[in-house]
């Protein structure tokens, strides 16, 4: 038997890749201990298991150097962005497209930059692939396999094969969403067929393979597409101040994975940075720059009055994000007037 190190599903011995997320399968039969290049002594067998993304480490070493190389068919490289395991010869991560030969860029203040996905990088999910084309305003071109599907807001569609079936996802609270300026209709494209997506401004594609049991909140209109294994809902932003001054309206998109992993693609304006907040740790963020967060991260808008004598001054609103969990921001944002 073999199992997938990402989703832990088991497969027959003749299978090579996971049918759900495309990760190379690992045999459950005991393998020869890998060769340790440092000590020239047999090293303990690494336990191939799924791990949650750890907090970013400053001055992270290049993945190839940080991950010990293993001998034979078990040689793998761990992607620092999504933690998926990849073949030793891979140049980019199969699950998220992050280059594996470039070190993780982490600022001194702890923000790690979203990986710059190389032009024409291919990402695998289920029986489908996604090719990222272009770098200034990237295009996500999906080659849907039979039985696979992606959902999206229809205005991000760039082109499609005329035979790619399309449908509409039934969502609840349509009137509320329409009043809140959110998309009333979520479209679904089903495989087999090709379809491509892009947004309308310079930025980066943020590829987020969601492992089972993840809940991610995303700024409205920031999501480009998601695979059908991900369930989509929305959460109402609580608190009048958060709605009025939070810079993102009344709702946030929420993406939840159940028992199976999924692929979520966001488009961030400008550059995208992510930071892991420890439990109780806070950071103040311009509300318009917020891109995504783990559902465990709380967000509350706080106002600071800046006075200028006779003219009364103005107010400055910043969102206090409190951990634990990930927070993603974009560097190009709409500043929301407060006065």
């Amino acid at each position, binding site marked *: 038997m073999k199992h997938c190190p990402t989703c832990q599903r088991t497969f027959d011995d003749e299978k090579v890749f996971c049918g759900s997320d495309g990760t190379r399968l690992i045999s459950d039969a005991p393998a020869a201990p890998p060769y340790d290049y440092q000590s020239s002594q047999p090293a303990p067998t690494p336990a191939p298991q799924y791990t949650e993304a750890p907090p970013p480490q400053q001055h992270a070493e290049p993945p190839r150097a940080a991950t010990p190389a293993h001998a034979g068919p078990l040689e793998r490289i761990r992607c620092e962005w999504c933690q998926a395991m990849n073949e030793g010869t891979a140049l980019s991560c199969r699950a998220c497209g992050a280059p594996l030969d470039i070190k993780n860029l982490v600022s*001194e203040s702890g923000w790690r*930059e979203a990986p710059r996905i190389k032009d024409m990088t291919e990402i695998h999910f289920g029986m489908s692939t996604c090719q990222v084309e272009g770098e*200034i305003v990237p295009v996500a071109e999906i080659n849907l396999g039979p039985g696979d599907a992606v959902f999206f807001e229809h205005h991000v569609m760039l082109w499609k094969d005329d035979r790619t079936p399309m449908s509409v996802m039934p969502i609840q609270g349509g009137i509320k969403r329409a009043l809140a300026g959110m998309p009333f209709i979520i479209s679904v494209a089903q495989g087999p067929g090709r379809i491509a997506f892009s947004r309308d401004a310079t*930025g980066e594609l943020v590829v987020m393979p969601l492992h089972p049991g993840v809940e991610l909140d995303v700024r409205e209109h920031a999501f480009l597409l998601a695979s059908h294994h991900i369930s989509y809902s929305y959460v109402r932003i609580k608190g009048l101040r958060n709605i009025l001054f939070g810079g993102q309206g009344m709702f946030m998109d929420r993406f939840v994975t159940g028992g199976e992993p999924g692929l979520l693609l966001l488009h961030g304006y400008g550059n995208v940075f992510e930071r892991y907040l420890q439990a109780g740790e806070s950071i103040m963020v311009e509300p318009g720059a917020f891109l995504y967060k783990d559902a465990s991260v709380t967000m509350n808008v706080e106002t600071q009055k800046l006075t*200028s004598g006779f003219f009364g001054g103005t107010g400055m609103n910043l969102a206090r994000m409190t951990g634990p969990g990930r927070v993603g921001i974009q560097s*190009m944002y709409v500043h929301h007037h407060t006065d």
Partner: protein
Amino acid sequence: MTYNQAAQHGGPARTHTCPWCGLVTDGTSLNCPACGASIDVGSIVTDSGWTELPGRRDMAKLQFGNSFCQIEGTYVPVADFNLAQGDGVYFAHHVLLWKDPQVDVTAMSLKGAWKRLFAGLPLIMTQAVGPGHVAFSQDSAGEVIALPLQPGQAVDVREHIFMVATLNITYDWFSTGVWFNTRNGDETETHYPLGQFMDRFFAPQTPGLLLLHAAGNVFVRQIPAGHTILVKPTALLFKDPSVQMQLHFEHPAGARSSWRSWGERYLWLRLFGPGRVAVQSAYAHLHDNGRNITRHSNATRQQW
């Protein structure tokens, strides 16, 4: 970029002079510590004499006082300041991206609030004092320009280009003196192609760091004394105070005044040397209604 290697006995003296800011270092770091320019990349100069803003590595670090600034990202770069105790920066509050909760942000009052209000300039400049992290970014794809100012050095910056400056740099503003009036019936409209005011930054006693954000790419050139060049008014980023400005109207051959805004005339900004000027490649379109110009500031005219 050039290395000056003097073969001397008792150890080679290897120095590097940054062509962007002029700082002399030992050339052992990857970036100029004052402006972040990569030191192993050659200066790129066009055939016409414009120097492109030197390449900057992602996560390049600049130092000022006891503090650091890290430039992160390449499309819309973020200036992430690590302020030491007592060091501070000021900025227009809408460029603030994030900050540590303990970093105190206060208002810095400005003179001439009425005029600034009518000119559409920010009424309040905001300042943040260390210790702690605070980060800034603008809202368009482009480049962050690091301008280290030496004592006694000043620079004039077009409005809304300024991002952040250290507290030892003084901030002032002045009227551009570049305008023209058009008339439509009884209605007179005044136009300021460059904006009504320009910012002036000056380092009186100690060196300071000024960060600007330009849309698109940035090009700089030195205009010799007595020379002149025409640029689009909204493309101007900054200039030395010694560079003088005035309007230039150009009428292409065969154009008719009835064409109005379809191309009857071109509006230019004429810059006179000596001094340094910088332009950005992505600039706002300057709308000209094409109506008759009744009055204008000093200007030259060319009818082809």
